[in-house]
């Protein structure tokens, strides 16, 4: 058993569009350990969802995926072919999608959909599959589970549907779960319950979890490690405390200024904002993608591609031409201003 359940090195996704080549994901590298939660955070269009689809090999047919390394549990999954990948998908690698209504089939009962994956991947009988389905539905906090099995998705509320999705992902006992915005469509009270449930199940089954979200509050509370994405690139990586207490990349700093933090931001005070818009990722890209919105941009920012560099603490790294000392000073100045 490898300690790292997933290792991604220099993952790139290109999609041809009428006006050229769209560089949706550019050289993304990260790893996830067993029992670890990695949150990938970024705004819409930054490539976070495509990164997850690329890992699962679920990209649209015209997209091309390259990587130096893509290993799941020490096994290369980059060039293993569709048949072997299909044996991994839904088996040892599970995925939870954002909208539980569209990811459950309205024409099949809950039991059908829960048992399908298990019957496909493991040598079990129907009775055994039914038992596991009931066990997992109870595990995710659904009462009267055996009655629920006969129901159809439309008979369940949004929170219950997402619980069913989680139970479905757990059916084969995966060691890695990728959750793409699992709570975005839910109310805050239900969101807290679902996240708590995910965290508990992850500990219990010692799984790796990749959580993709745009909600910085969710990230801070759930993540062990955080990866911030902007315009197809990772711009900062570190533990949750490192990224939230000492944001170093100017984009991360700007993003954290944008949200009102109860108790810290004065009520009614002006919030920070990031001027400009996300750049187009079509055609040749050079230099820092954030340069035209960055308050500290210099000539050298657009001249060449910017490399990742280490911040003060081990495990914390970021992409910027500025040294960690200068970035820390910038963050301080922002707080005073």
């Amino acid at each position: 058993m490898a300690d790292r359940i997933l290792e991604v090195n220099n993952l790139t996704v290109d999609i041809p569009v009428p006006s050229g080549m769209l560089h949706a994901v550019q050289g993304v590298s990260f790893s996830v350990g067993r029992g670890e939660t990695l949150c990938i955070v970024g705004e819409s269009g930054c490539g976070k969802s495509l990164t997850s689809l690329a890992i699962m090999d679920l990209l649209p047919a015209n997209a091309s995926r390259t990587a130096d390394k893509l290993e799941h549990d020490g096994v290369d999954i980059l060039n293993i072919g569709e048949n072997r990948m299909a044996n991994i998908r839904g088996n040892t690698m599970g995925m939870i999608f954002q909208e539980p209504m569209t990811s459950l089939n309205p024409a099949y009962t809950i039991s059908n959909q829960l048992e399908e994956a298990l019957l496909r991947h493991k040598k079990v009988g129907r009775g055994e599959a039914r038992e596991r389905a009931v066990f997992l539905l109870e595990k995710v906090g659904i009462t009267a589970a055996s009655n629920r099995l006969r129901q159809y998705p439309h008979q369940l509320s949004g929170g219950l549907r997402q619980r069913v999705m989680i139970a479905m992902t757990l059916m084969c006992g995966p060691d890695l779960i990728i959750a793409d915005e699992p709570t975005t469509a839910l109310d805050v009270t239900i969101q807290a319950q679902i996240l708590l449930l995910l965290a508990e199940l992850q500990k219990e089954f010692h799984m790796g979890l990749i959580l993709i979200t745009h909600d910085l509050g969710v990230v801070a509370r759930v993540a062990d490690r955080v990866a911030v994405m902007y315009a197809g690139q990772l711009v900062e990586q570190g533990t949750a405390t490192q990224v939230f207490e000492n944001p170093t990349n100017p984009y991360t700093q700007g993003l954290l200024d944008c949200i009102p933090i109860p108790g810290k931001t004065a009520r009614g005070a002006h919030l920070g904002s990031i001027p400009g818009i996300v750049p187009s990722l079509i055609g040749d890209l050079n230099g820092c993608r954030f340069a035209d919105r960055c308050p500290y941009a210099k000539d050298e920012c657009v001249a060449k591609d910017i490399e990742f560099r280490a911040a003060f603490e081990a495990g914390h790294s970021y992409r910027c031409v500025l040294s960690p000392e200068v970035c820390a000073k910038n963050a301080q100045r922002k707080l005073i201003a």
Partner: protein
Amino acid sequence: MTKTVIDVRDARQTFMISAGAFRGKRPLHAVNGVSITIDRGEVLGIVGESGCGKTTLAKMILGLLQPTGGDILLEGRPITELTRLEVARLLQPIFQDPYSSLNPRKSVGNIISLPLKVQKDPHPESWRERVEEKMALVGLAKRLYNLYPNQLSGGQRQRVAVARALVNRPQVVICDEPTSALDVSVQSQILNLLQDLRYQLNLTYILISHNLAVVEHIATRVAVMYLGRVVEEADTASLFERPQHPYTRALLESVLTPEPALGVPDTQLGAAYPNPVAPPSGCTFHPRCTQVMNHCSRIAPRPVATETGHVECHLYAADQGKERAIS
């Protein structure tokens, strides 16, 4: 000029829901006796889970739904006596999704000037100037006048929606989830804009949102809704610092602030949101309440006045409402 702009008195909205082809219709009380007043210059935040009736309440105030009971008074006059155009001069909405609330076949200039056209403004020659003035106010460049919504970013579209709402100089702007479809960095721009406009134009806002951090930041008063009723209403500061109703407390606990050390809170709100067609007896919150008492399931609590508003919970009534339980 009166101080109170909107006075909602015991407003009710009941929809008849079909329970099946051969079964009769059953009533759904979407808004079940809401009384609330909004003073000039206030920002009233309305929060609650989906299905609690916050959007229905907003639609009734906008005159888009006829209340099935109670009164709504706009500047002291019942809304039923006002024509649609009169209501629209006073109140304007901003909707959640700027991708679906702007007509894709009309240019920005046309979209923003439409309220003037609808109100049969007597000076058509001044429209362009007034639209451009409003565009400048919300931070849109003049050159966008002839563009179409699909050529704009999400933030720009929401600015167009704000400009359209303001072009007729309304008193009150009703914002239904104005930023939840936007990215974090754009959200802060729109929130800053709404704040600035409020002071510049002396506007009154009704802000409907499930994002409590946004409500805490902008609102001056907050009403918490649960199953069609306002269960707690108070000043923003008192509500967020000293929440009274168990539901408000649970709601505030489930807000995930970006503080990494805290972890995910356990709100103990076990049971799911109840079916509004068959609401629980007594206090509708009792099945999920952590401080439930015996009589909560039998007797609905009455509003109890607090320092800055009211709360509907037996915990704060005289003798915890037990007196009514015996009689």
